[in-house]
């Protein structure tokens, strides 16, 4: 059983996103270890991209800072390899397709495997284009995470048939970013996905505070938080480590307070 599946079996994971290389690759590695120390169960590392069309302003700016500071895929592979010597926590890349395409699918996924990466999320690779990387990713044991959105409706069935690891459920319309109110229908969306599959369902987009974490943990198998963490890095730069750890701790406590899945 792979690390992602094991994690979902053991508990309801907190999946924390961070933009790789913001403010530097060395700091990202330190921040990831702090998040893990705070209780993060899965780490999603954003490969910075010049034109992140699914991101709101917080992560857009982090992408530009990271690129401005010289981050690139090779440096992030080296960081993952170094992290893998220190932790068994599942590590995922979140990247637009073009950086993967340009690197070469074969070369990219073989590097993923060598470095000990577990999976990949590609927001501009919908079900229709999945075959682009599916075979090569699976040959190197890298799980390609499927995404479901509030607009997916009758597409849910075909999407989840291919799903592995977990299903990344987009909580609301639009791009990533902190939202003060989550869409009330997210519970129904998760329920409609669960009708079609045994694969765990995690929810992301807009979750930022412990109240939201607790509410979503009532019905989801995991929660994904990105912009709120990236905001801490934006505000505190190199000194963000401890604050990231404390933030994750608070979110984990809120999730633990949610009603048990049984």
């Amino acid at each position, binding site marked *: 059983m792979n690390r992602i599946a094991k994690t979902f079996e053991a508990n309801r994971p907190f999946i924390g996103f961070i933009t790789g290389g913001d403010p530097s690759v060395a700091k990202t590695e330190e921040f990831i270890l702090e998040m893990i120390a705070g209780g993060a169960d899965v780490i999603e590392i954003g490969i910075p991209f010049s034109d992140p069309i699914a991101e709101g302003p917080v992560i857009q700016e982090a992408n530009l800072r990271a690129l401005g500071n010289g981050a690139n895929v090779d440096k992030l592979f080296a960081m993952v390899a170094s992290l893998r010597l220190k932790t068994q926590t599942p590590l995922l890349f979140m990247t637009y397709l073009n950086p993967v395409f340009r690197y070469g699918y074969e070369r990219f996924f073989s590097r993923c495997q060598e470095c000990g990466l577990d999976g990949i999320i590609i927001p501009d690779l919908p079900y229709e284009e999945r075959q682009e990387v599916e075979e090569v990713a699976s040959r190197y044991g890298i799980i390609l995470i499927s995404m479901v*959105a509030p607009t997916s409706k009758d597409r849910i069935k075909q999407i989840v048939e291919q799903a592995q690891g977990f299903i990344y459920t987009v909580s609301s319309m639009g791009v990533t970013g902190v939202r003060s109110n989550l869409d009330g229908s997210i519970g129904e969306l998760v329920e409609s996905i669960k009708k079609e599959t045994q694969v765990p369902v995690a929810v992301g987009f807009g979750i930022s505070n412990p109240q939201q974490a607790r509410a979503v943990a009532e019905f989801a198998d995991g929660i994904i938080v990105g912009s709120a963490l990236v905001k801490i890095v934006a505000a505190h730069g190199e000194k963000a480590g401890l604050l990231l750890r404390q933030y994750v701790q608070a979110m984990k406590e809120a999730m633990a307070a949610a009603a048990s899945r049984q």
Partner: protein
Amino acid sequence: MDQPIKKGRFGLHGGQYVPETLMNELLKLEQAYTQAMEDAEFRQELNSLLTKYAGRPSLLYHAKKMSADLGGPQIYLKREDLNHTGSHKINNVLGQVLLAKRMGKTRVIAETGAGQHGVATATAAALLDLACVIFMGKEDVERQLLNVYRMELLGATVIPVTTGTMTLKDAVNETMREWTRRVEDTLYVLGSVMGPHPFPTMVRDFQSVIGSETRAQILKETGSLPVAVLACVGGGSNAMGMFYPFIQDEGVRLIGCEAAGQGIETEKHAATIAKGSLGVFHGMKSYFCQDEYGQIAPVYSISAGLDYPGIGPEHAHLYDSGRGEYRPVTDEEAVQAFEYLARTEGIICAIESAHAVAQLMKMAKEFSAQDSVVICLSGRGDKDVAAIARYRGRNIYE
């Protein structure tokens, strides 16, 4: 080669590389588009708008002075600059806005570079009673203030985009983001033969009126087909509209003219075919200006409408198959052509279109006086006059 081999594919290129949030909407759009085109009433309504509102058919003008002066072929200009709103953009926009209405949408959004597509979209939205929001890079807003004011006069809201390089590509990013926020009541009226399927096919079909008219007009006037058709290429909508009806005519060379800015040997250009490489961006697989890590490169051209780091997927395929030729044209060459056409024929064309004029000026001697060649004059140049004056050192502002 004229039909996508697989859904939305042109050879290797095309596809639907977008977030899941948009997928159902793209499928709905494809279905609505297919049904609309099979509906005689829709086609008639569109045709009526094109003839009675936009002023089609546009003229095919025999530029005799220019032909004689250059000593090459007989040069014909397809006068898309004479359309309502001053460019070819209206052809596509009337189609898409009509389609938006048919789909029950109440609002359209669009990106714009030079402002031509924004003005055209705002115009169609005003006519057909839809709310309209235009995203325009902050830098382009500053370059094209008059077009911004025009859009506002037409009732549209213009949002300056301050992310990234603040030009056309960033305007596309922001319009896509806005569409993922609001697909229910909104259609993204894409301005070029780019983006995810069905846009490249749909925009090409709406723009094909350019080539279809040209083909009939030149046959009527000369009794034979041209040896070449030329058009400027950013995303490539006027070029695709001109080329498409000629693809089966093997004797007709299809020549796309891309923006070489300060020269393809510098970093300041937008010459995607000359300098780009295969990639996946803005929903499509095609050629893009990018670095070794797949970061999209900042591009440059004097022409805001060609200042785009990619090219439509069907053009990429025409290039791969050898059916289309793509040539880089510098700012300086385009400005000279802009001035030449004004002096010689009394026509001030868009600086975008001047790239195609410049390319013919460079290659005129390859043709004989018995040959005819058509240049697509995609837009008029009023919007560019102040910028060209400044390029020539005259401090004129709009």
